[in-house]
């Protein structure tokens, strides 16, 4: 029964040092790292490092930075954090000579770009990495357009700043023309050595969760809903040793959230003239953070995701999973500033920037939303609905839907019995928990229309995958010849993450036959949202009824959700396939895919 006095979460009551940490320095980052250099306030609106053409020389190096008042060393490209925007043209063959000046092996992966396997930049799979002092020449032809990004694929270099945007200009011009075009790269900066963060999670996995429920919360709920209801609700979670506040493994306690390399106080600014259409290319370059993005006062028209144009859809807010990209067009018609507000999913902090007609303006920054709790559907999937009104189900909440080890390592408590008694529940038997799997979902939910925990019924029009329809249909209209089901598994307490209960070290590669069309079904047996990224090939997500929905390179699978997508295995070679939460990937939520 872990419960709480609720502190105001919007900064009030937070001491000054803490606020500086959360909001960062106004002139922080790379500029502050250069001894004695201070960029003027206008720098926030100035163009960022950008490279275009077909020949690129990139240098990975270390650079002193200061985002929070503490001097640290970041991993950067050409002295920039984020790394320079690379602007390519569809159809061009680009050559990128990447030199590594770090004392350790490094790498760059071009996220979402279709290219030969040896150009993909994953050490141990695509190549051996770039040794200290060496240069690797990446060369490939770009047959796609849109917003992508690039990042390090070596250990935790991505966490320390090795990420940057890519924009590929379409050969025939933009489908959705706009007068202004900005990349908005969101990331999570930490002053803590990521090796230490990873080790800490292995020692105490809830170390960064400062949003747990406390005794005060219990008293509050007991007053509001009655003691019996509050107790029953706690009983359910606690009996299963599940934590409904487990929204992010690493929180604002360790992170300062950045927008284009600017801490909130630094206020990245994009300029516009009234009435102009402004295209914002959002990229989540975080290691661990899902962002919920909105621009109070503006409707956003979503026009592309993961580089792929979609039927335009107008929303107030969207959740951007780690490694996903989303392009929106806004048309500010006031002579005023608008805040681009990106709060972390666990509401422990935010990245923030401004759209303004003139530099130096700013608008009100909204308070963080209340911290949400995971719901029954995040643990039990469909069954949380089925259970309503079923006679004889009272008191069963503890074990139903999610198959839980009830304490002695073998018994499944009421869950198995419940499944036997219910028609249409067949897979329960095979779903065992174990030392690396603390939860199973017997009846996952299958819809795509849930925007996810914290965004449900918040009064705003929030994007969900059900709203995304890639224009032009699938690249391959064949029916899948076979189906691969993978379960996303983990053990929160031991901080073990895997596919199908097997960590990378213990798992054989997945084998795709060259040219085949197959369906991948993912079932999330955890209470976290996992952004799953298949390298080398597109993932064409199916709607709940099996129709083509949206083409993506990274797919966020919500807790207790089942989701499927079609893949055409047309890219020969060895590829990485993993959860894009960096510490989950390092913990083994990773598979090799071999196309042969």
């Amino acid at each position, binding site marked *: *029964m872990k419960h*709480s*006095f609720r502190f105001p979460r919007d900064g009030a009551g937070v001491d000054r040092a803490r606020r500086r940490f959360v909001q960062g320095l106004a002139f922080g980052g790379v500029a502050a790292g250069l001894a004695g250099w201070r960029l003027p306030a206008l720098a926030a609106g100035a163009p960022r490092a950008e490279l275009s053409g077909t020949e690129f020389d990139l240098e990975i190096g270390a650079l002193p930075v200061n985002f929070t008042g503490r001097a640290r060393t970041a991993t950067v490209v050409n002295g920039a954090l984020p790394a320079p925007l690379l602007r390519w043209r569809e159809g061009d063959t680009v050559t990128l000579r990447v030199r590594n000046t770090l004392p350790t092996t490094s790498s760059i992966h071009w996220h979402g770009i*279709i290219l*030969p*396997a*040896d*150009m993909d930049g994953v*050490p*141990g*799979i695509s*190549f*051996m*990495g770039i040794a200290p002092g060496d240069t690797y020449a990446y060369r490939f032809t770009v*047959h*796609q357009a849109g917003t992508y990004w690039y990042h390090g694929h070596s*250990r935790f270099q991505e966490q320390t700043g090795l990420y940057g945007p890519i924009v590929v200009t*379409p*050969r025939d*011009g933009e*489908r*959705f*023309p706009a007068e202004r075009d900005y990349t908005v790269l969101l990331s999570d900066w930490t002053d803590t050595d990521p090796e230490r963060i990873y*080790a800490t999670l*292995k020692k*105490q996995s809830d*170390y960064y969760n400062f949003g*747990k429920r*406390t*005794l005060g919360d219990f008293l509050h709920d007991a007053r509001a809903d009655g003691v019996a209801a509050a107790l029953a609700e706690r*009983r359910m979670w*606690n*009996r299963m040793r599940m934590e409904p506040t487990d929204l992010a493994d690493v929180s604002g306690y360790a992170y300062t959230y950045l927008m284009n390399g600017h801490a909130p106080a630094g206020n990245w600014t994009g300029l516009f003239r009234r009435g102009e*259409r402004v295209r914002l290319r959002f990229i989540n370059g975080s290691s661990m953070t899902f962002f919920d993005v909105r621009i109070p006062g503006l409707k956003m028209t979503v026009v592309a995701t993961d580089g792929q144009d979609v*039927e*335009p859809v107008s929303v107030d807010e969207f959740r951007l999973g780690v490694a996903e990209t989303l392009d929106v067009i806004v048309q500010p018609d006031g002579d005023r500033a608008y805040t681009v507000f990106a709060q972390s999913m666990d509401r422990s902090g935010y990245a923030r920037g401004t759209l303004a007609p003139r530099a130096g303006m700013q608008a009100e920054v909204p308070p963080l939303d209340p911290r949400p709790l995971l719901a029954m559907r995040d643990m039990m999937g469909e069954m949380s609905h089925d259970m309503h009104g079923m006679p004889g189900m009272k008191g069963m909440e503890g074990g139903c839907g999610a198959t839980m080890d009830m*304490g002695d*390592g073998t018994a499944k408590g009421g869950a198995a019995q419940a499944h036997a008694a219910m028609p249409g529940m067949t897979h329960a038997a095979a779903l065992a928990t174990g*030392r*690396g799997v603390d939860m199973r979902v017997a009846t996952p939910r299958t819809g795509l229309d849930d925007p996810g925990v914290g965004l449900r019924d918040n009064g705003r029009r929030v994007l969900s995958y059900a709203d995304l329809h890639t*224009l*032009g*249909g*699938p*690249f391959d*209209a064949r029916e899948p010849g076979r189906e691969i089901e993978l379960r996303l598994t983990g053990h929160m*307490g031991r*901080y*073990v993450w895997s596919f199908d209960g097997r960590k*990378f*070290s213990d798992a054989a590669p997945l084998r795709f036959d060259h*040219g085949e069309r197959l369906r991948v079904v993912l079932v999330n047996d955890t209470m976290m949202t996992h952004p799953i990224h298949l390298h080398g090939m*597109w993932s064409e997500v199916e709607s709940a009824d099996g*129709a083509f929905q949206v083409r993506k390179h990274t797919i966020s699978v919500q807790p207790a959700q089942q989701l499927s997508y079609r893949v055409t295995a047309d890219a*020969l*070679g*060895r590829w990485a396939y993993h959860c894009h939460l960096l510490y989950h990937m390092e*913990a*083994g939520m*990773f598979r090799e895919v071999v196309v042969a």
Partner: protein
Amino acid sequence: MSRRRMRHMLVAALFAAMPQAGAACAQEHAAHAMAMPQDAADASAPTAAPDAHARHATQTAQARHAVHAPPAPTAAASAAAARHVAPPPPAHPLPGMTHAQMVEAMAMGDDAVHARLLLDQFEHARGDDASAAAWNAQGWIGRDFDKLWFKTEGARRGGQVEDARAELLWDHAFATWWDWQLGARRDFGAGPGRDWIAFGIAGLAPYWFELQATAYVGAQGRAALRFEAEYELLLTQRLVLQPRAELDAYGKADPARGIGAGLSDGEFGLRLRYEIRREFAPYVGYVWTRRFGASAGLARSAGEPATDRQWVAGVRVWF
């Protein structure tokens, strides 16, 4: 479908309202909205050859545009459908390597060794008759499912260590919430030292109770049982109340160490800590200790009370 189309029209209207290229854009979207049912048909239409999908997509896109006669800028739309080109095979694929070499090249950390040292109690205790210093520490080093554990517990009173023990155990995770532990224990301090073989179960019970139950077998037919349980109640995010209970039982009396056969002693502690950092938390607490049965008799005959109540103050530290 109709709701989706309506939404689509709205968006098209929104684009139409935008200056400049709005008109062309809106036309395209309206056209697309009308093509919706056909989209669905496209998606399920079979194709002839695996690598023909790009061509197929182009054809359907062209067909659609022929029907709706789009304006020039939307040529981009038809190109979009044709955009996918399968990548050529890798020119320089990696030579064959073992899984271990691959893991090393990737710097994958999924089987790495980690270590933790927790000084759970490091405290000064003030009781009815005397004061003492006490410790309870445990550390581990190892991988996710197999670790080497070290535990030690004891007290110092009047400059002398009394009733202390140290254990070295192999810990293996065997179930969702449970580990078994196998190793050795040595008792030291007042009285003769004793050595034991230890086997126990440790883990997390429903409702977040942390439990440890260990059986010991020693020389001369000695046997012992030890049970520990603790819980953490969050008063705030940093203020934690930790109730903790401990019970010891022995199969055979060991008067030299003040132990009688049967249930020998129990301890119940309540510690309130404040986590300045997660790793560093000063605390205050209150601990009840009670000796039972024959052990209580031995204590009384040695002039010690069978029960004791102590205020404690200390720090909990880990790294």
